[in-house]
């Protein structure tokens, strides 16, 4: 029995992976198709002849339809494919939280990222040589005929263009790895894929040209600074003298055509990367309809997806769950139905258990992060301030208390608070135990410590002291809000989960004929209130007056807070008259009373 269940899970996992892989392949293939479209457009523009429009079209058609154009595109296609495969690996797994700036730098130099950067550099060089060839240059050859004794010289103009392509490729890859948030954000509305691509493509083209300016300026500075070394070393390496005719003067950026050409190539390199990202977003975020029950034995059901190890599949599951809760009444009925034989609400139980587990786990994680932030903002505590220490500990423990409590037993909740306090202090404050313990505890510990432990403690203190030094702290010091920001960045699906549970619970008043939902109502309310409390305690804010919206994690925090409050309002609107019948603690009742009377802002 267990073997068959394991086989089923493996088969379903395989199907889920297949859905993911097929979408990624489609995105990569469409990226190659769009490359062809870009080439066609560039050729069309390059053959511009306003006075002879027919000739213009004819020339453009001839260039586009020539075999050479598409033959040279093959290596570009292969490179695009390789880039796509590497980029898709990033999306398959959720990035782990990096708490120091040094860690961020190190993660940028992971082998995969290095390969990615190298690929991008090669890709940059290929784009430059390909488009230059289309424009009639011979950029792929670094030499040109000249009057020297060899008969050939180093063509610095081509070297300049090629190195520009390589630099832009490197810059784009590094920027993406270090500065850009790598998480798939689902669009707020599900348009057709063609409409999405059409809408985003125009924006991407403009954005690419804008983004190309800054790295090109950096390149100009770099080339002005060490272009001479490059030229001389390369000249020595390939044994060709420098051609004075093609030499780039000191004020080379004042050559308008060269600058324009470089900017065009830079924009195309950036655009190619952006196009692939955009296509990944479009294809991977397409809504999927998962069946509630597996009728044929090999279907991936909603419950399977919700527990999928692939983060993206999990999100697709949550998105589909919200769709069911808001619109799909047929599948709602299926969700509320009982199993045959047995008469158990397996469908509903599977969904509610997984969503509540995710919400509770997020709340716990976030409450620990809140503790970290509060400790950091209050600064290291001195052993002589027991009251402050106690207050801080209490403030850190409070949000997590409902996780372990039963809605009907406040005493149990208090006991659990103490359990958590012990755990929390052991795990989170281990490094700073000397600072956080009171005098009495300190003296007792000191007696117990042997020489080895004392020296270890001294070493730790020394390390702490070094870490507090300004420059070192900047690089190696832990960013206290890193954990919270990391959690928030991956919380989009939790907003959907909370709202889906609220909508389903409200709909159950009319459609749940077996009453399978109402047994879970206290647990749902408890989880939502607990999450709301933790989010409200999270000290990350941005000023609404600022014209530019805040960073993505802050906006996701606002979205999650709003979604949780909305969910509580939905529940209170639907179950307002019956809330007294639910087994809820007095604290929860008090919180809900504000929602029933619409006094919670």
């Amino acid at each position, binding site marked *: 029995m267990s073997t068959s269940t394991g086989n089923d899970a493996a088969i379903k996992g395989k199907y889920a992976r297949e859905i993911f892989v097929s979408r990624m392949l489609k995105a990569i293939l469409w990226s190659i198709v769009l490359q062809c479209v870009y080439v066609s457009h560039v050729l069309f523009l390059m053959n511009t002849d306003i006075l002879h429009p027919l000739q213009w079209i004819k020339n453009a058609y001839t260039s586009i339809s020539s075999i050479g154009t598409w033959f040279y595109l093959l290596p570009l296609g292969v490179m695009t494919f390789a880039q796509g495969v590497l980029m898709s690996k990033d999306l398959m797994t959720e990035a782990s939280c990096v708490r120091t700036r040094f860690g961020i730098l190190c993660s940028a130099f992971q082998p995969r990222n290095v390969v990615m950067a190298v690929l991008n550099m090669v890709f940059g060089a290929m784009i430059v040589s390909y488009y230059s060839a289309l424009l009639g240059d011979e950029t792929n050859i670094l030499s040109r005929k000249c009057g020297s004794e060899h008969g050939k010289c180093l063509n610095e103009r081509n070297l300049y263009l090629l190195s520009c392509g390589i630099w832009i490729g490197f810059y784009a890859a590094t920027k993406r790895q270090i500065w850009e948030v790598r998480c798939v954000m689902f*669009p*707020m*509305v*599900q*348009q*057709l894929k063609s*409409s999405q691509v059409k*809408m985003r493509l125009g924006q991407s083209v403009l954005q690419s040209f804008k983004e190309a300016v800054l790295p090109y300026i950096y390149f100009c500075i770099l080339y002005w600074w060490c272009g001479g070394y490059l030229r001389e070393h390369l000249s020595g390496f390939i044994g060709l003298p420098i051609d004075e005719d093609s030499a780039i003067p000191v004020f080379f950026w004042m050559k308008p055509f060269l600058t324009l050409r470089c900017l065009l190539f830079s924009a195309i390199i950036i655009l190619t990367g952006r196009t692939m990202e955009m296509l990944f977003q479009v294809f991977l975020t397409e809504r999927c309809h998962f069946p509630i029950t597996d009728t044929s034995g090999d279907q991936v059901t909603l419950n399977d997806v919700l527990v999928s190890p692939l983060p993206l599949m999990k999100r697709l599951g949550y998105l589909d769950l919200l769709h069911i809760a*808001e*619109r799909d*009444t*047929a599948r709602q009925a299926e969700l509320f139905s009982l199993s045959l034989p047995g008469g158990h609400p397996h469908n509903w139980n599977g969904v509610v258990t997984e969503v509540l587990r995710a919400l509770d786990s997020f709340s716990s994680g976030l409450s620990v992060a809140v503790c970290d932030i509060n400790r950091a903002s209050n600064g290291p505590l001195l052993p002589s301030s027991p009251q402050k220490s106690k207050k801080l500990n209490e403030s850190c423990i409070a949000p997590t208390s409902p996780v372990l409590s039963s809605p009907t037993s406040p005493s149990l909740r208090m006991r659990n608070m103490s359990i958590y306090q012990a755990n929390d202090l052991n795990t989170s404050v281990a490094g700073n135990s000397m600072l956080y313990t009171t005098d009495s505890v300190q003296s007792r510990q000191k007696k117990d410590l042997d020489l080895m432990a004392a020296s270890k403690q001294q070493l730790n203190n020394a390390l702490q002291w070094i870490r507090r030094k300004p420059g070192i702290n900047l690089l190696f010091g832990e960013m206290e809000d890193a954990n919270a920001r990391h959690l928030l960045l991956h919380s989009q699906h939790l907003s959907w989960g909370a*709202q889906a549970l609220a*909508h389903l619970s*409200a*709909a159950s*008043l*009319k459609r749940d004929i077996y009453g399978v939902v109402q047994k879970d109502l206290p647990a749902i309310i408890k989880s939502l209130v607990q999450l709301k409390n933790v989010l409200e305690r999270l000290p990350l804010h941005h*000023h*609404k*007056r600022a*014209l530019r*919206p*805040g960073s993505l994690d802050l*906006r*996701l925090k*606002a*979205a999650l*807070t*709003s*979604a949780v*409050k*909305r969910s509580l*309002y*939905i529940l209170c*609107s*639907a179950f307002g008259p019956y809330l007294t019948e639910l087994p809820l603690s007095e604290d929860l009742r008090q919180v809900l009373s504000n929602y029933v*009377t*619409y*006094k*919670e*802002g």
Partner: protein
Amino acid sequence: MVASCAGFSPLPPEGCVSVCEIDGKVAHKPFESANPAEFTNTVVTHPVISLSHDAVHLAAREDARHVFLHVEEKLLKRIISTWYEQGTVEALELAATPNDQSGYILQMSARIALKAIHAMSLVLNSVYPHFGERGQHLTASGAHSRSLHHNPVRCIAWHPHITKIAVAVSDDSVRVYTAMSPGLVPTLRSKGQRSVSCLAWRPHSASELAVGCHAGVLVWQVDPKSVVTRPSISCATVLKQPGHSPVSSVQWNSTGTLLVSAATGDTSMYIWDVDLQESIPLRRVGGGGISLVSWSPDVHKLLAATTSVTFRVWDSSNWVPERWRVLSGHVRTACWSPCSTVLLFTTSEESVVYALQFKPNCAQLDTMFYSDTPVSEQAARVVINLAQEEVGNGTRIGGTVLSMVWDRLGRHLALIFENSPLVAIYRTDLVPHLLITPNCLVKGASGEQPTTIAFQNNFDVGACLTIAWSSGRIQYFPIVYQELKNPNQSVRHNASMQYRPDQSFLETSMAPDASSFMHSFQDSFLSY
């Protein structure tokens, strides 16, 4: 059967105003003593709102600069200050004006530049008809209330769940009145909130109010626990997009997750995720700027009316529109039935109400028979003929509709007209098919004209029509059914009640099953 403007209850005698309707009987009282509390206590706790012209501090308009004394300045300085304050075109016009200080070359250059700008705008206007119009005219063309700047009240919006009403005043402020705290009236005002044209409360939220104005959309967070009467701009999220101005219509979807905004000067409408501060433009070729947007209650469809004959009904599952055209003018006002199967709309030039029938979703199959013909192959049908009729004392009713609202139970439809001082209320039945019959007329005090109307959303004992009159008075007109009353809401019998002419018919046909009708609607369409 097509309803008309005939068959309403008779108008109240001269000097009297309509106060309420209790079980089909319309009550009238002299204006000075008109108080619905004499008949019903359903609106006793409602805030009393009266915004006279004196109480409204009008915002500074363009002509405010004329109050200052004229000072002789050098031409160059004047041109620069005109450019800074009013824009390039005005500065060029000043430079082109013959003047002692301006030389011939400057005048000629300015004239040539002006001609070039005019030629460009002509070309642009031929492609986008409404891009040439700016300012108040464009705001007014998209607004659904009478003459924006001559009435104290521009628009009103009831909160979807509680007795809380937002009133946009002609001084560009928005005042929020709550039944729970009548003395505390938060006033939402900011420098960027000019020419307010529309309001929308967020569903499943106590405090979020979207205000559409010339510059964009401001989503205010009015904390119900706060005692601050002038919240600062830090309580608002400003939603702007280049070219998306002036905003003429905003609406939340019924789940409160998305906000849609439309601007008469923009061919795109924007769907906003306010919390994430992200937007997606939705655009199709043709039609010009968008004047009106309206979500269906089940969030499956979204109406987008343009400033031309075209309007679209978007399917929100894949965001593909169905394109429709009216015969002339543009769709001015529209409302959805609670079950989202019927869309009623009126145009700016025809005196009729059209209805579009949509196929219901599976869960809403309360009716047994529906045509399999796709909606796009059907035509909108006329359901009310609003040809003008005299209803006594020389008062006429009918004509082109200024605003139309349908109550949340789908039982009453209220209309105000461009050229009539009366509010017409029709009774509507949706089961088994749409049936509209005249109900009653609401008359204000002498000289008063209805500016804008709205139904209260949380009125459980019938419907409460709220009318903003041109005098600044806001009237609650409750339509109460005793069968639906709450234990704490009662009806007081009064001798001044008048029976409608068709009351005998109503007494026999409607009254016995009115409660069952209403309950069935509540069960069918009102979820949470």
